């Protein structure tokens, strides 16, 4: 379980995350949605100790992220942020192998190689495994980064907009893959999403943020409602029930 209590963060005088208290259950897929500038990414970075928080605390399975050694946490929790720009020139296999660093410290064992191969296969990168990242399209590169996170094999995986740069078919298979790893392998997946319908169809739990605060949380049935979505985004929404999923339209 990830317990966030009273977490705040400000950049200069702007308060971006304002006293958020939230507990994310273990297991399942949780989506964080909300308008731009709601503090979603900032909150996620603080949970993953990438950003120091001004106030409050984050506890992951009893480990306080600000105190626990980075090494221990890296075997429990991993994060993939939005923009992953590399100066280093790496092949897909090289990058994915870094996912094993918390376990083998740069000297991958045979078991690590197995993990790497599996992660590469999962994300359909088998044909590209020896290509350099700068020779790949944005979507292929995004999949390589996700493969690296999978390879880290942590109980908690955080993704900041994992569907960035992915086409429709790859978005769907990415969501399925992450949902399956939550269901079948007992992983906890938390992601920031912009596509309400992906959040609605694949999440077990949705967290809504607005203006740096926790606005609402609940199951997709609780959240994906006309009046609620309209209030969150300030745009007219229509919600339809289609094949057991709630689909929002807003065009």
């Amino acid at each position: 379980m990830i317990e966030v209590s009273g977490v705040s963060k400000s950049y200069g005088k702007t308060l971006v995350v304002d006293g958020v208290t939230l507990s994310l259950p273990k297991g399942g897929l949780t989506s964080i949605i909300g308008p731009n500038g709601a503090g979603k990414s900032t909150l996620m970075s603080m949970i993953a100790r990438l950003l120091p928080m001004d106030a409050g605390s984050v506890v992951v399975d009893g480990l306080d992220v600000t105190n626990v050694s980075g090494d221990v946490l890296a075997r429990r929790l991993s994060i993939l942020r939005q923009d992953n720009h590399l100066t280093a020139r790496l092949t897909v296999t090289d990058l994915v192998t870094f996912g094993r660093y918390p376990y083998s410290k740069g000297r991958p064992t045979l078991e690590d190689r197995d993990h790497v191969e599996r992660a590469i296969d999962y994300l359909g990168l088998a044909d590209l495994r020896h290509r350099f990242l700068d020779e790949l399209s944005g979507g292929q590169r995004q999949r390589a980064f996700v493969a690296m996170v999978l390879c880290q094999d942590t109980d908690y995986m955080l993704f900041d907009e994992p569907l960035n740069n992915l086409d429709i078919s790859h978005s769907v298979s990415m969501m399925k893959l992450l949902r399956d790893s939550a269901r079948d392998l007992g992983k906890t997946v938390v992601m920031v999403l912009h596509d309400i319908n992906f959040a609605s169809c694949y999440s077990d739990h949705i967290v809504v943020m607005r203006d740096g605060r926790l606005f609402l949380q609940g199951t997709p049935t609780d959240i994906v409602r006309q009046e609620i979505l309209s209030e969150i985004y300030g745009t007219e929404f229509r919600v339809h029930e289609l094949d057991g999923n709630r689909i929002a339209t807003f065009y």
Partner: protein
Amino acid sequence: MSPDVLRKTSLVTLSILAVLSLVSAVAFMTWGARGSWSFVLSFRGTRLAALIIVAYAISVSTVLFQTITGNRILTPSIMGFDALYVLLQTVLVFTLGAAATSAIDPRLMFIVEVAAMVGFSLLLFRFLFSGHAQNIHLLVLVGIVLGVLFRSLSGFLQRIINPDDFVVLQDRLFASFNITDGTLVGVSAVLVAGVSVFIWRMRDTFDVLALGRDMAISLGLDYQAATTRILILVAILISVSTALVGPVTFFGLLVANLAYLIIPASRHRYTLPAAVLISVLCLVGGQTILERLFAFDTALSIIIEFAGGLFFILFLLKGRNR
């Protein structure tokens, strides 16, 4: 490229560089030697050792600095590291006087200088890197401005200093690849060897650091500690090279980027040795050719800075196209 092919190409490239460096070192020691061999070998041996130490210090410090800044145009020298060294020297001679400064044991003096350098640079660069706005243009600008500030301060002190002291100071700061001071070379060798032990022990973290701050932390690296340690090592290496030959601005940029060019994948286990070997080849080979073919008509530092400067401009332009 498959891992095996990558490893093979890298190793072949490294071997070729190693052979070329060896050839240039042998040429440096023997070409045009006349008279007593024992004199020639010990005289040239000291200079060769100094050149190799400088080559090693500059290349390793540049590659590591670029790894932690995630930028291939920045070098410690462009960020004003060596200007700081010159300032420290000037302040020392200015406050203590030339006689007192010369009376200090050179080994002790060197160590004190290095310590001051490390302290100062940590303060400066910790401040620069701790900001969340890691704007690279701001960083370069700050570095250049600080470099100018350090140089102007040194210039100012040098103008109001006692003329006798100034002569001594000028002698200390003159950039030259003709070092014959055995003691200084010895102290440098010990320092560089000590630094290398730490670098060797950290070798597995470099590739992870090159992924950038966020990924390094996510993979469980103590980022703050690792970058601080590397900054200290870089500061020591720069002090050593500046103490031996004076400020060399663009050389590190040149050799580091050549190493990235000829080694296909960014693994420090290949790029670091490649940068060192290219650096040795340039300094030792260049010095040999200058001495033997051009009979000392021009200074090596001028040629290297010219080539490095061109390379720097080329890199900036290429970066803008992207």
